[in-house]
């Protein structure tokens, strides 16, 4: 019986892409921990008093994701943790969209982007798309030696994916302003 095995090139791209996205997100959160706690409070998923603790927990789990994905032995647990976080964020966003609290800041990249990114359905789509590489990392990976061209391809593809992700995020942040002008 043949088991589907992911080619190591795809595997590495997924791994570094997810690690990179979480690293940027965590860096923003650590940069302004109090503002991030305020954003968590706005989500209103825990009592106000517990928000700083939840914010710290989220940052710690993100650190765990990065540590797992960049290590040589815990990539799969790291990917599982990343999937769990993405699902939890999507749940928080969907809950607040359902409550009609669209105005609150998503805090996605931490408070450095505060006031810039209101909640929208796009964020759910984004979390879903990010979940794909995280889920692929749970597959078994083929054992195969990589040449220099493949290593360069991994680096270039990861960089391209990260830059494209940032561009899509910037466009999504601009969207409400464009709508305002278009009226």
């Amino acid at each position, binding site marked *: 019986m043949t088991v589907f095995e992911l080619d190591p090139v795809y595997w590495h791209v997924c791994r570094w892409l997810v690690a990179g996205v979480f690293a940027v997100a965590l860096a923003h959160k650590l940069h302004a921990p109090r*503002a991030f706690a305020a954003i968590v409070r706005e989500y209103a998923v825990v009592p106000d008093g517990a928000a700083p603790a939840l914010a710290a927990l989220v940052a710690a789990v993100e650190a765990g994701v990065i540590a797992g994905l960049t290590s040589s032995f815990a990539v799969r647990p790291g990917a599982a943790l990343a999937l769990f976080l993405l699902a939890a964020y999507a749940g928080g966003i969907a809950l607040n969209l359902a409550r009609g609290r669209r105005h609150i800041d998503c805090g996605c990249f931490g408070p450095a982007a505060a*006031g810039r990114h209101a909640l929208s359905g796009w964020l759910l789509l984004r979390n879903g798309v990010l979940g794909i590489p995280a889920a692929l990392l749970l597959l078994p990976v083929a054992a195969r030696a990589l040449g220099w061209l493949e290593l360069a391809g991994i680096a270039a593809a990861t*960089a391209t994916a990260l*830059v*494209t992700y940032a561009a899509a995020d910037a466009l999504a*942040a*601009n969207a409400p302003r464009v709508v305002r002008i278009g009226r």
Partner: protein
Amino acid sequence: MTALGISVVLLWVAVLVLAALVLALARQVGVLHERVLPAGALLLGSGARPGEAAPEHVLKDLAGRDVHIGGRREDGRHTLLFFLSPTCPVCKTLLPVLRSARKAEAAWLDIVLASDGDLQEQHRFVEQEALGAFPYVVSRDLGVSYRVGKLPYAYLIDDAGVLRTGGLVNSREHLESVFNAKELAVASVQDYLQRERAAKEHVA
């Protein structure tokens, strides 16, 4: 290195550069949005202030119809009082905006044009610019009671007879800002900017 290898490297370089350009463009759009401040009607120090009761007037327009300005309105409609003059070139550039606003905002808004000066000249102006659809009042007292010093000047009066917003309007954007101010419940562009600033400081 094989030809395939070379072309793959070249393609990756091209893709990376293009992705970086897209990111730079997206960010520039964001910066432009930040820089372009909301253009708005400028509230002059001398004019009547938002929140004040609008001075009440009952006047006859050029067609002889009664026009009631200010005071409580039972039908819940707002009034845009637009001060203009046949001799003011900027006012003329805004007439198409007023015509489209009359249709677009017809559900909640009446537009009243107000002027001052020689009656014959006013009649000619109304005819030339085809303003027959608007109530057009000529009254010096009206301008004085609203303390209008510069033209074109506009006030939005709500159904309770209170001045909601107003100011000097020099462009389509300024006039639209008067409607936006009603939607956003802010008194003027200064008020809006002040709130934005306060909100930003609050976050920081």
